[in-house]
């Protein structure tokens, strides 16, 4: 067994043991918190698929997460609680939306592509805001989480955690397979040299669109899980700053690296929590309100990373390893 596999197994074991430990310590809050982190890890990993693997700077990923959340939420609110219906429906809806947005925006390039994905996502935000039937700007409160059957109660924080963990592992494994399969090679080739990929006979637009749709669908899954997790869906999930936060996660963790999205989500959310909940005494003495300005720290860290470590933290680590 090599070091890589050992580390992987250790990480997985820690992830599996975590909720049991927290349960024993009567700290179920952290199980719920960890589930939220893992769901964002799924969302960030799905963005990484299009941003990192596909090289498309999509700035509207929140639209797919939000759409998945809404579809799943609307179904639960309407009495269709089965996850076996709700989650595939969410994935499908996000995929269809990604197909529409992708088909329009992939016709453009560079700055235009960024702005247009951004604008279409914001359009979804306003659309959900004005949908009175689904709560409008008030959002949609759900009475229960989705139901999975098989005697698994998703209302139980620990069960829910394991389902989310399984979903994340499945997504990462699928991404790993995809990256090394024919499709992944084509996507990597397009990212590296789009002109040449077209010139050796790949229908570039079509492949990019497929990649965009897969990422959107995976984002929809994250959304469906979020809806169940918080039992609440609101348009703020679709706001463009949410897309920006997802991007921050991906960059923080490492663009185009398998673990990048997940790592970034864990780091960002853990950092936010630690800053807000566990103030450093000496810093508190200088700046009493600093925990309320956690975003200042996030912003500065981001700026420094972008300016000095564009490969993200994963890049920093692996660069050291190579050295």
């Amino acid at each position, binding site marked *: 067994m090599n070091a890589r596999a050992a580390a992987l197994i250790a990480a997985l074991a820690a992830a599996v043991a975590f909720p049991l430990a927290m349960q024993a310590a009567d700290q179920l809050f952290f199980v719920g918190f960890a589930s939220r982190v893992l769901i964002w890890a799924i969302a960030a990993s799905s963005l990484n698929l299009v*941003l990192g693997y596909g090289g498309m*700077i999509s*700035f509207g990923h929140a639209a797919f997460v939000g759409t998945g959340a809404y579809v799943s939420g609307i179904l639960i609110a309407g009495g269709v609680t089965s996850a076996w219906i709700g989650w595939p429906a969410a994935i499908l809806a996000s995929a269809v939306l990604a197909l529409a947005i992708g088909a*329009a925006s992939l*016709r*453009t390039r*560079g*700055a*235009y592509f*960024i*702005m*247009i994905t*951004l*604008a*279409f996502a*914001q*359009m979804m935000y*306003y*659309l959900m*805001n*004005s*949908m*009175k*039937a689904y709560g409008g700007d008030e959002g949609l409160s759900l009475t229960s989480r989705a139901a999975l059957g098989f005697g698994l109660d998703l209302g139980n924080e620990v069960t829910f955690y394991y389902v989310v963990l399984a979903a994340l592992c499945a997504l990462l494994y699928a991404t790993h397979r995809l990256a090394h399969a024919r499709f992944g090679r084509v996507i990597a080739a397009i990212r590296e040299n789009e002109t040449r990929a077209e010139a050796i006979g790949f229908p570039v637009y079509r492949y990019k669109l497929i990649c965009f749709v897969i990422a959107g669908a995976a984002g929809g899954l994250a959304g469906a899980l979020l809806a169940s997790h918080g039992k609440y869906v609101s348009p703020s999930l679709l706001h*463009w*700053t949410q897309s*920006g936060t997802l*991007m*921050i996660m991906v*960059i923080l963790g490492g*663009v185009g690296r398998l673990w990048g999205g997940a790592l970034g989500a864990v780091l960002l959310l853990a950092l936010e929590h630690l800053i807000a909940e566990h103030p450093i005494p000496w810093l508190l003495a200088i700046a009493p*309100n600093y925990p309320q*300005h956690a*975003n*200042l720290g*996030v*912003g*500065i860290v*981001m*700026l420094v990373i*972008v*300016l000095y470590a*564009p490969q993200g933290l994963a890049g920093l680590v692996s660069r050291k390893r190579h050295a």
Partner: protein
Amino acid sequence: MSWILILEQSLNGLQFGLMLFLLAAGLTLVFGIMDMINLAHGSLYMLGAFFAATLVQATGSFALGVLLAIPATALAGMLLEVAVLRTLYARDHLSQVLATFALILIANEVVRIVWGSDLQMTMPAALSGPVQLLPGMPYPAYRLLIIGVGLAVAALLYVLVAKTRIGMLVRAGASNREMALAMGVNIQRLFTLVFGVGAALCAVAGAMLGPLFAVQVGMGESILILAFVVIVIGGIGSIRGALVGAVLVGMVDTIGRAFLPHLFGLFLPPQFASAAGPAIASVLVYLLMAVVLFVRPQGLFPARG
């Protein structure tokens, strides 16, 4: 639906469009010359409003406060450009997006630390009432002022860009940066200047809208996306495109919100009309963008041939 109502809503749309133009004009030049995406443009709008609110209070004069806020914001914008943005020109769009997104977070928190999360800004008492535009049609004097200021700034900008040497150099830089360099144009300095002007325009918009809306942290974030829509419609790098796009977006948005639900009510069952009307109205500008994009992928007035 009376003509007066339509006229009044059109004025409202014009007023909104002109303010959008002020934001989009600076943004589109930054795009055009440096091929740089600057998300932090909305933060300058916010900063302009906070400066204006503070200075109006400090000086006790609305006009003086606003006039002082403009150079202050311009200076802040130029400082930002020299300190951070300059290093981003040569970087890819992803870096620019992330770095300027980080700047939004930083700007929000800095403003929160310095001023708190919001400030009150009152319009001058003399303008807080209506003006009789037509018989039976009073219109808020302050909104007329906004329209006036918007038109005046647009005209000033037109003169600056179309008639002055600086404007010619800016246009030259926007269409062919390398050739402008080879002709001896100091693009770096020119760009700092353009950035300052863009920030000043932000300040005008922020200061004028401050009393009408609210001077608060995050105020630039939603309007920034609309400014992007304006640029996509107008064409990157084109001031004329920004003006046409902004007025178009302002009109379509306001008119759509005002009349679309009623229009739907004419030929749709009421319960459906009341649900679909506002929903469609709220995304009308984005649909407009999609249509323009489909017909003219480079926008209405692309700056590059």
